[in-house]
């Protein structure tokens, strides 16, 4: 933890800023974490994917995966920094919207329309950067594509995907 090039304040700041790209329901932190920590080699892609998978398996807000990211970056203080980093914008946002709900609505409505497309691009970049170092086999690409289609058209529960993938992985290992 002490050797980590990323400290408490940086973790909190990056998570805080990344949440700005969550407007409209997107998962902005994913893409920013990928860009800031995974791509430069500060966070192992497998650990990133693992924290994300644990988050999908857990109940409640999906932002819970950030505690795992923070832990991998800087131990328990890092986990706390990540939690504070994601809670602060929600805290200020909740207060501001409660006060200024009617006045802010037209402005944020204008941003929220293009935000859907921009966030889609950000998430796609994160998925691409996650996939690239894994050098997926053609069969794995087909499986990922099939999961994407099921997510969009059948509203597949993420936990089912993650649990199912873990089971398939175990069976694959046991029989291979």
């Amino acid at each position: 933890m002490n050797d980590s090039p990323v400290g408490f304040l940086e973790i909190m700041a990056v998570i805080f800023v990344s949440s700005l790209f969550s407007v409209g329901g997107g998962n902005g932190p994913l893409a920013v974490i990928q860009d800031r920590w995974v791509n430069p080699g500060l966070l192992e892609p497998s650990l990133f994917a693992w924290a994300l998978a644990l988050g999908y398996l857990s109940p409640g807000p999906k932002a819970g995966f950030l505690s795992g990211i923070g832990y991998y970056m800087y131990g328990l203080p890092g986990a706390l920094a990540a939690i504070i980093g994601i809670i602060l914008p929600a805290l200020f946002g909740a207060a501001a919207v409660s006060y200024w709900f009617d006045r802010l609505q037209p402005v944020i409505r204008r941003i929220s329309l293009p935000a859907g497309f921009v966030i889609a691009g950000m998430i796609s970049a994160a998925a691409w950067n996650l996939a690239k170092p894994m050098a997926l086999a053609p069969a794995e690409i087909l499986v990922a594509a099939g999961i994407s289609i099921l997510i969009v058209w059948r509203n597949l529960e993420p936990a089912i995907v993650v649990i199912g993938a873990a089971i398939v992985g175990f069976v694959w290992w046991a029989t291979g």
Partner: protein
Amino acid sequence: MTNEPAKSPTAAELEPANNGHVSLVELGVTLFRIGATSFGGLWAGTRKLEKELVQKKGWLTVEEQRALMVAATLIPAPKFLSFGGMVGFRLRKWPGSIVALFAILAPPALLVLVGAIYLNPQLLGGPMPTISRAVGVGVIGLLFGNALHQIRSTKVPGKERVIGIVLGVSVASAAIMGVPLIVAALVGLILGVCFIRRGKDKSK
């Protein structure tokens, strides 16, 4: 799943149904329970939230709950968290919001933390590398699925939809080619505000 926009009173116009004697402990315990028992995000948890906050506690009316859920999508933070923060703020102002946010995030954050500490895939041998790879493939599928869902759920007219898709692809391409993601996204947002003005976000 309830995706209908609230047409009844806005959050600012409404007063909580029964917020006179809500203690911070009660607020925290209730939001913790919601965080520990809701799966699938804010929209999937609509009925659970209504059961806890409207029917059992009487802290909100159904109209208030809907208005706050709509408002949660306007905050640049995860929707579920934002919703919890607004519930807390309406009941007990700043202390209520802080307690609500920590309480609703605690269950998944603690579970992930325990998993990260004790199930670190790099420290475990055996099946973990294979399981981790399979889960990675699943997560990649999930991410692309979420990206497609974002595009699909944003309803804008034909021409602006094409512009939006081009915008999304451009942001992704720029980020993949090495442009800092935050720069790419901010430029994308600015261009999007200029060119995409009509339509509605289905997720609201």
